[in-house]
């Protein structure tokens, strides 16, 4: 399950941010996202949230979306895994 979420999330970021498979595969838990990657603007944040819902089959309440979720890849993955576990 965890591997699937990780793979889904990397594919999603590769698509939305145009990272390509290599850069997406090279993301580590400490890789910075919002503020680090110039492609990651507020529209990209919105797109990522909606795509996470569609691809992971989860519902995200926007009140629970804090800024730190998008600070690093590790934070985003933790959030996604928590949501998938329910």
């Amino acid at each position: 399950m965890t591997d699937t979420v990780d793979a889904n999330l990397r594919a999603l970021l590769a698509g939305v941010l145009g990272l390509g498979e290599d850069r997406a595969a090279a993301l580590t838990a400490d890789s910075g996202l919002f503020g680090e990657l110039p492609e990651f603007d507020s529209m990209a944040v919105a797109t990522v949230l909606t795509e996470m819902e569609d691809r992971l089959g989860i519902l995200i309440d926007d009140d629970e979306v804090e800024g730190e979720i998008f600070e690093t890849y590790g934070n985003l993955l933790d959030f996604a895994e928590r949501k998938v576990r329910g």
Partner: protein
Amino acid sequence: MDEQLFRLSPAGPPRATVLFIPPLFEEANRVRRTLVLAMRALVAEEFAALLPDLPGQNESLVPLVEANLERWRSALADVARGVDGPLIVASLRGGCLIDHDAEAAAWWRLAPANGASLLRTLLRARVSADREAGIASSIEGLREAAKTGALLLAGNRLSPAMIAQLGDAEARAVEPLRTVTLGKNEDKIAGTPLWLRAEPGEDAAMARAIADDIIGWSRSCGVI
């Protein structure tokens, strides 16, 4: 008001015409170059290809706030009526929500989006931009405000009617229909979701695959 209609035609009479219905809002800009490449590939196979501007989109002089999905469906039906010979409607993403009033010999859809998801992304982008500007807003608050007044969402000024229609919109049943998504197996188009991409790009291989798939579907339906 007449809208711009980008048309590519072969030298001789076309075997059929493909009417492309682009994704909605910003997503249309992100795939336009690849769509035009697909249109050129179709013309090389003796098809004509059309890419209309929806009222309020692209080069249209109509203010977007005057547009809604019903108006777009009817504008596309008008474009379809103006085509001589067999017509295939090829729609992408949110374009699949407005393709069913056009009369066609066959429909082809790529990665259909539902209206609620498109709207949620636009609302989220507004909340996120508000937050950066130090303004507190919420998706629920914006939904409430949209019942009585237009909203500016990610650069798009949308009327209450547009927002209400978008929130409920799903692709309708049409016949004969082929729906493809992105991926590597059968009934998939290899490529990346350019319509989601923060920076516009183009994908020539994906354009070729789109054209090939539409041609194959036209043949299966007996259109060519």
